[in-house]
């Protein structure tokens, strides 16, 4: 009887970090999708701007600059606890993951609170004119994106405090969530520039 060659994969690990993980790939595709959505919205912003002589159009005040800039600082600062969560997750250190997740989530909450003030100081309504509409829409898209990621992160943090927290796959999920948070921060920067500096510079 001819013996058949076999490969026994039973000893392979049951989880993996980084681009070995299917969660990483799923996160990347979601980043691609959301990034394209933002790109379309930013392109729409410039397209509508091209139709106007002045931007904002006549009689429309500039959007407030202070709160969004505060938010830029909050988000950039959040990269530090986010990094700590990621490395703790890759070390599978439950205690550190729990601690830094709570800290990172606080930054996210602060951002959302400041976002409310940002909206209030846009100085234009969504139904005033196309400038107001596209400004509110772009900021609104980013806010929804942020809010859903905040809910996601909080649920994951809570999960890490339950008995399900100490499992390899949970640590992979946490690591991917941190990866995604980097995108949330990075995507805010161009949107901030478009919304708050284009009317001032162009």
């Amino acid at each position, binding site marked *: 009887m001819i013996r058949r060659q076999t490969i*026994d*994969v039973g000893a392979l690990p049951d989880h993996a970090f980084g681009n*070995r993980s299917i969660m990483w*790939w799923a996160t990347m595709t979601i980043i691609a999708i959301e990034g*394209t959505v933002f790109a379309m919205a930013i392109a729409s912003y410039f397209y509508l701007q091209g139709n106007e002589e002045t931007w904002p159009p006549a009689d429309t005040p500039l959007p407030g600059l202070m709160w969004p800039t505060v938010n830029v600082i909050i988000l950039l600062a959040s990269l530090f606890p986010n990094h700590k969560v990621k490395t703790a997750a890759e070390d599978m250190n439950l205690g550190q993951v729990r601690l830094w997740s709570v800290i990172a989530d606080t930054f996210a909450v602060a951002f959302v609170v400041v976002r409310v003030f940002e909206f209030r100081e846009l100085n234009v309504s*969504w139904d005033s004119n196309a400038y107001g509409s*596209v400004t509110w829409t772009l900021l609104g898209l980013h806010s929804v994106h942020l809010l859903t990621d905040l809910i996601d992160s909080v649920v994951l943090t809570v999960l890490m405090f339950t008995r399900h927290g100490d499992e390899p796959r949970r640590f992979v999920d946490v690591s991917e969530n941190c990866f995604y948070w980097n995108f949330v921060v990075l995507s805010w920067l161009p949107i901030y520039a478009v919304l708050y500096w284009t009317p001032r510079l162009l």
Partner: protein
Amino acid sequence: MSGTRVIDEASPLTQPSPPRGRGQGEGAGPYSLPGDHGLHRQLEKTWSPATGPLRWFMQIDHHVIGKRFIITAFIWFALGGVLAALMRIQLSRPGNTFLSADLYNQIFTMHGTTMMFLFAVPVMEAVAIYMIPLLVGSRALAFPRLTAFSYYMFLFGGIMLYTAFFLNIGPDAGWFSYVPLASPEFAPGKRVDIWSQLVNFTEISAIAVAIELIVTILKQRTPGMSVNRMPLYVWSMLVTAFMIIFAMPAVMVGSLYLLLDRLVGTHLFNVAEGGDPLLWQHLFWFFGHPEVYIIFIPALGMVSSIITTFCRRPVFGYTAMVLSQVATGFIGFGLWVHHMFTTGLPQSGESFFTAASMMIAIPSGIQIFCWIATIWMGRPVYKPPLMFVLGFVAIFVLGGLSGVMVASIPIDLQVHDTFFVVAHLHYVLIGGAVFPLLGALYYWFPKITGRLMNDRAGHVSFWLIFIGFNLTFFPMHKLGLIGMPRRVYTYLSETGWGQLNLLATIGSVVLALGFLTYFINALVCAKRGEFAGANPWDGPTLEWATDSPPPHYNFIHMPVVSSTEPLWHAPEHAPLVTGLSTTAKEVLITRTFDAEPDHRYTYPAPSAWPFLTALATAGIFLGLLFTPWAFVIGLPIASLMAVGWFWPTTPQKEGDAPQDSATASEAVA
């Protein structure tokens, strides 16, 4: 086209397999080890679909969801076809009063919306949901609960649309819903809102499936299936999935803007306050053009699969074929302005789009030449799948040539928005996508159902569809050139368009008969067809290595492959994978490019959370038809459903019983 069937005498194609029961789980095929019978029972138990009274809502198995998806998509296709028949009756003679203007405008809107959003893309994804895990040698499609969720979103969207239509609030501004015709001022009421939400349902569904396909194809291929050994159909679905990721957001953003303008008074498209109707066109067509390639590229993969098996040799020029598909995918994003040549954009910019629109014919042409070369060097077997592929070549090439015509701006300025374009689009979509689809369904029917379709009915249906199609749509080229615009519910007899229209209507009757024959063949043979066995066509790819229909775990052992046609290259010598759990739904995750085994991943048990989350999301979309607060109320509810979905159940126990390993394991060289 019967006659010369020169095949090896020993080929299963000349001798039907002895009758076999469905899924007897003997570990049939070349990838089994002695003693696998017990293994089969354990695996079948672990991978079994949901049971119990609520099981319909809990299924996550890719075979179950794939079949549901295919059947539902064809129901929408049939409805869309009935709508087309109604249009053809109305246009069969001048001044006809069969349909009022209002009803006709709703019907052509519903026909386009159904075919483009509810049929063409979903059916291609549906076939992939079923077939891709089999073709890459995996036990499952990635993210099975997401697959279920995408099915429910697709289903709910279609139900919403048709309910609205039957309640006389269906959309009526065209499948492309141009503003300001679709803006609140000129389209009051809910009709266009329904259209907008239908887009959201189907785009979310399509994007979710795209994620699953990308992850499955890149990370779950069987060892040895490096990227240059992937079947061409797998490549085509990979390219398609990436196109979906980058194209769909444009129409989601566009339909969001439309909804905002209609619901909360934004002015994104309102000229009076600085908005721009062309913004809609750019966003829509940035999606709309890649959309037709999203429909077409899977069909290219299907053609390659069929030609390989029915010409008894691999497709000529694998590298050229792969690069052509990828090139088509990329170039497809650079054509969208050719839908806007009459809007007065600067001519220098427009010329770029003419060049790109013509250039895309090159990779398509290369593929046609490679297929002809394959046939030349192979040995054709004239079964219905090959007939549909030959029909594809004859029809699609003509459609591609009329496409080169409309790519030329001066010619387009005459034929844009006329029946010439209706002819062109049906030649490339029906010829380029539906013909391969019908061939592929015929080809994979035995794998999915365990039985063969009837060949004589298959040939008859092919000829009826081929002749009916050409009779219907060829005259439309002329109609457009002699002045008949699109989207007209009637025309004056003095125009002289009556005769060609009547011919087209007669053709549509033949076409409908053809489709009917095909579907009756499928429905009857699903229950009473001849048993197929594992590999009735002597196909070379992995799906033919397992039972028909496959067990829920697909393969009792995954093989290590060393060729693009594993079953034609001594499959009984292929090393086999052992060691995956028998009590948990484990799949093997391999490395992205070279498919070396990397780690194991466990998929979850059946669950109703995807259904509930889809229901909550549908609630948000429907609520948004009436008030923006639906979003505020609905989001927490949908989030709760999602939490239920993702909340882990009892943690995995360590040390699950591995598979029997027959001999000493050896790593693949």
